[in-house]
C-alpha cells in the first residue's frame, strides 16, 4: 500500500510524468484544489492569462512553436466556455492541447449549480475526445490517455473535466504507462510503409511531365525531420513546390523551387501550376475550400496522390487517385531512400522531363503577382511586412498573426525558412489569436524574437494579454498594421456590396502608444514610409514588450485573389481586374 494522494496531486504527477514545464490558466472556485497543489511542484510553472481564451491561444502558440503539447487549466462554467474558441481553433489546425477544467462537485452536477455548465457536452464537437472524471481512481489513467490522444495521429485538443470533490479525494497513485491500451487501434500507425506504395508514387512521378508538390501543416506536425526529408525530396526531384498557409516554413520561402503560398490569396504561379499540373502530390494538406475554390474545376487534368495521417482527410473534398495513410515524415524518408536505391534512372531523367513545365511556371512568375504600387507618402502594408522581414531575417524570428488582410500579407511577404516559426489561425480564422499566441511562443523560446503581425481590429479582441506579457517580462512585439478598418471585411464589401462599408470602420480606436504605456510596455508609432526602418529597428532592439502602431494605407486591398466560384487559372491580380459585375447568387455565398 502506497501513500494516498489527492486527485489534485495526481493531476500534477501525470503532468510531471509527461515532462510538462508550463501550464497556461486562470483560477476559479471549481479548480482551486489544483491551484493549491501548484506550490508543491516546482518544475511546473503556471502562466496566468487575463482571459481563458488568451490562455488557450497561448497554449496553442507554445505547442506549435515547440512541438510539445500545450496545457491549459481553467475553472468550471465561464472558465470552460471561454476556452471553447481556443479549443475549436486547435481542433481545426491540429494543435495538441490538454485542457483541464474544474467542475462543480459530483453531487451538484445536473442541478444548475453556481458556475456549472455541461463542459463535456459543449466541448464534444471541438475536441478529439473529452472525459468527465467521476471516480478518482480513474483520474491517472484518463490524464495519461489525454496526453496520448492529444499528441498521436493527427494531433488535436482534448479536455479532462474534474469535479471539485474528485480533486480532493485521495487514492493510490498508479500509472501504468508501459501497459498502454491501444486506442482501439487508432492512434498507432504501425509505422510500416509498403514498398508497393512507394513504387506507385515513384512511378507516377516518372510518368509526369508537369508535377507539383502541394504541402501543408501535416509536414510541420510531423516534426522537424519531416521538413528535412521534404527538402531532400524536392531537391532530388527538382519538382516545383507550393505550400498552404499552415505549411509555410516546412520548405524555405526564398528557394527558387518554391512557388509561394497557394489558394485564395496565393501566388499566380502556384495557383496556375495547381490548375495545369498532371501530377499533384499532396503531402499533409487537406484540400480546404480556401485552396480548392470550385471543386468541380479543381486541377482537372491531374492525377492526385494524397499522403496524410488522417484517413478521413483523404477523399473528403477531392477524389484522389493514390491515397496513402501514413505519418508524412516517415513516408518521405522512406520515399527518398527508395528513389536513391532503386530508381536511379528516375534521378537521371527527371529534370529533363520537367524542363518545359518550369518554362511555363517562369512565365506565370513574370506576372509578379505579389507586386504592389508603393508610395512615398503613405505606408503600404505590404511594404511594412517586407521591411519587417528584411530587418528581422538575420535572426531566428517567430511570427504569429491575427486574422484578416494583414495575415495574408504576412503569409505572402514574410519568408519562412524553418518549420514551427509561423503560428496563424488558418482553419477557424480566429481574430485575437496572435497576441496570446505570441505570449505562448515567447514562453517556449524566451531568447528569441517573437512578433505578432496584427491588425488593429483583431488585436483589440485579446489586448488584455499584454498584461500577461508584462507580468512575465515577455518581450513580444505587437506589430499592428493599423488601417482603421476590419480590412478583409472592408475589401469584400468593396468588391461585393457596392462599397457599403457597413460597420467595418472602427470609429474610436485607442491611442496604441498610450495604451502600451498604460500596460507598462513600450509604444512606437510610424506614419511615414521613410521612418519605418528606423522605428522597426527600435522595436527589435527594445528589451520589453512593444506595441507598434504602424499607420498604413486604409484603402489597400489584398491581391492576388481567386474570386470564389472560379477555378485557379482565373485570378484577380490587382485593382484593375476587379471591374466585373457580381451576381446576386455570388453575394449570397459570402
Amino acid at each position, binding site marked *: 500500500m502506497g501513500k494516498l494522494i489527492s486527485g489534485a496531486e495526481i493531476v500534477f504527477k501525470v503532468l510531471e510524468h509527461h515532462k510538462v514545464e508550463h501550464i497556461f490558466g486562470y483560477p476559479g472556485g471549481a479548480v482551486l484544489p489544483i491551484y493549491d497543489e501548484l506550490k508543491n511542484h516546482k518544475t511546473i510553472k503556471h502562466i496566468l492569462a487575463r482571459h481563458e481564451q488568451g490562455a488557450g491561444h497561448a497554449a496553442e502558440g507554445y505547442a506549435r512553436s515547440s512541438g510539445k503539447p500545450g496545457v491549459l487549466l481553467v475553472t468550471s462554467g465561464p472558465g470552460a466556455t471561454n476556452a471553447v474558441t481556443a479549443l475549436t481553433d486547435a481542433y481545426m489546425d491540429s494543435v495538441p492541447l490538454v485542457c483541464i477544467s474544474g467542475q462543480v462537485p459530483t453531487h451538484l452536477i445536473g442541478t444548475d449549480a453556481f458556475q456549472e455548465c455541461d463542459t*463535456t*457536452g459543449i466541448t*464534444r*464537437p471541438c475536441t*478529439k*475526445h473529452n472525459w*468527465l472524471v*467521476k471516480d478518482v481512481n480513474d483520474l491517472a489513467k484518463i490524464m495519461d490517455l489525454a496526453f496520448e*490522444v492529444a499528441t498521436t495521429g493527427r494531433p488535436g485538443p482534448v479536455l479532462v473535466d474534474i469535479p471539485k470533490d474528485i480533486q480532493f479525494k485521495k487514492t493510490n497513485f498508479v500509472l501504468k504507462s508501459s501497459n498502454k491500451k491501444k*486506442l*482501439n487501434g*487508432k492512434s498507432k500507425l504501425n509505422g510500416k510503409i509498403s514498398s508497393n506504395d512507394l513504387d506507385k508514387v515513384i512511378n507516377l512521378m516518372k510518368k509526369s511531365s508537369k508535377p507539383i508538390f502541394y504541402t501543408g501543416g501535416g509536414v510541420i506536425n510531423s516534426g522537424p525531420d519531416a521538413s528535412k526529408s521534404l527538402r531532400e525530396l524536392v531537391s532530388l526531384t527538382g519538382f516545383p513546390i507550393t505550400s498552404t498557409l499552415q505549411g509555410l516554413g516546412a520548405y524555405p520561402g526564398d528557394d527558387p523551387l518554391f512557388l509561394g503560398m497557394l489558394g*485564395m490569396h496565393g501566388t499566380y504561379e502556384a495557383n496556375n501550376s495547381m490548375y495545369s499540373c498532371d501530377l499533384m502530390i499532396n503531402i499533409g494538406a487537406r484540400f480546404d*475550400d480556401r485552396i*480548392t*475554390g*470550385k*471543386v*468541380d474545376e479543381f486541377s482537372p487534368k491531374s492525377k492526385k496522390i494524397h499522403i496524410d495521417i*488522417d*484517413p*478521413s482527410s483523404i*477523399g*473528403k473534398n477531392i*477524389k484522389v487517385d493514390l491515397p496513402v495513410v501514413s505519418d508524412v515524415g516517415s513516408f518521405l524518408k522512406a520515399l527518398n531512400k527508395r528513389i536513391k536505391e532503386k530508381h536511379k534512372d528516375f534521378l537521371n531523367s527527371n529534370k529533363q522531363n520537367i524542363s518545359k513545365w518550369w518554362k511555363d511556371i517562369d512565365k506565370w512568375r513574370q506576372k509578379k503577382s505579389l507586386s504592389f504600387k508603393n508610395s512615398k507618402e503613405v505606408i503600404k502594408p505590404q511594404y511594412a511586412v517586407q521591411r519587417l522581414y528584411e530587418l528581422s531575417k538575420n535572426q531566428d524570428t517567430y511570427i504569429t498573426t491575427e486574422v484578416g488582410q494583414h495575415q495574408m500579407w504576412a503569409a505572402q511577404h514574410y519568408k519562412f525558412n524553418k518549420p514551427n516559426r509561423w503560428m496563424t489561425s488558418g482553419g477557424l480564422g480566429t481574430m485575437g489569436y496572435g497576441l496570446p499566441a505570441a505570449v505562448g511562443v515567447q514562453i517556449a523560446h524566451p531568447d528569441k524574437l517573437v512578433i505578432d503581425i496584427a491588425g488593429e481590429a483583431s488585436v483589440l479582441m485579446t489586448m488584455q494579454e499584454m498584461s500577461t506579457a508584462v507580468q512575465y517580462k515577455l518581450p513580444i512585439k505587437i506589430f499592428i498594421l493599423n488601417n482603421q478598418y476590419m480590412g478583409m471585411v472592408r475589401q*469584400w464589401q468593396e*468588391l*461585393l456590396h457596392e462599397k457599403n462599408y457597413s460597420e467595418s470602420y472602427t470609429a474610436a480606436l485607442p491611442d496604441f502608444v498610450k495604451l502600451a504605456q498604460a500596460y507598462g510596455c513600450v509604444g512606437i508609432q510610424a506614419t511615414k514610409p521613410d521612418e519605418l526602418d528606423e522605428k522597426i529597428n527600435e522595436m527589435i532592439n527594445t528589451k520589453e514588450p512593444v506595441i507598434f502602431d504602424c499607420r498604413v494605407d486604409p484603402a489597400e486591398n489584398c491581391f492576388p485573389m481567386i*474570386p*470564389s*466560384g*472560379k477555378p485557379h487559372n482565373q485570378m484577380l491580380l490587382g485593382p484593375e481586374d476587379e471591374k*466585373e*459585375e*457580381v*451576381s446576386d*447568387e*455570388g*453575394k*449570397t*455565398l*459570402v
Partner: protein
Amino acid sequence: MSKSKSAYSEPGKLGKSEHHIIVVWVDNEAGVLARVVGLFSGRGYNIESLAVAEVDRKKHISRITIVTSGTPSVIEQIKLQLKKLIPVHKVADFKRNDPNILFKELALFKVVSSKKNREKAQKACKKYNSFVLDKSKNSFVIQVTALRREIDKLIETLSPLGLVSTSRTGAVAMTRGSEIFK
C-alpha cells in the same frame, strides 16, 4: 454562368444518394451515443433510424445500428469519421439492398376499433411474425418484425382500421451465413 466573387465556393455536382446501414461497435460508456449522434448532426449527415444496446456485458460493448442515406463520398466520410472516435472499435457498412444482409425492425401497434376491423388488422399483420401481446374489449397490441418499408406499408393499411399508437425500434442488421464482420 454567373460571375461570383463570393468568399465561399459554389456547390459542386452531387453524387447519387444511397441508403446504407452503418453498424458501429462502441465502448458502452457515458456520452458515447451523444458522440456518435453529434457527429451526424454536426456534419449534416442523415439518421433515418437508430438502434442501440449493449451486446457484450463483460467487455461493455454496445452495438449501434444506424440507417442513413448519402452520396458514396458522404457514406465513406461517415465511416472514416466514426472510426476516429476514441470509443469506437469497428464500423461496418452495408447497402440496404445487399442480399447477404438480414435487416429487421420490430414494431408495436395499438389498434382500437370494432371487432371486424380488429380482425382485418390482425390478418394484415399475420405474415410478419405477429404476436398479440395484449387484448381488451375493444383493442389489442400487436408485435411485428419486418423490413422498414413493410412496416411503413403496414401502418398505411392499419390506419383506417383503428391504429392509434405505433412504436418501432429502428432497423438492426446481421450478415447471412457463418461469416462475421471483423
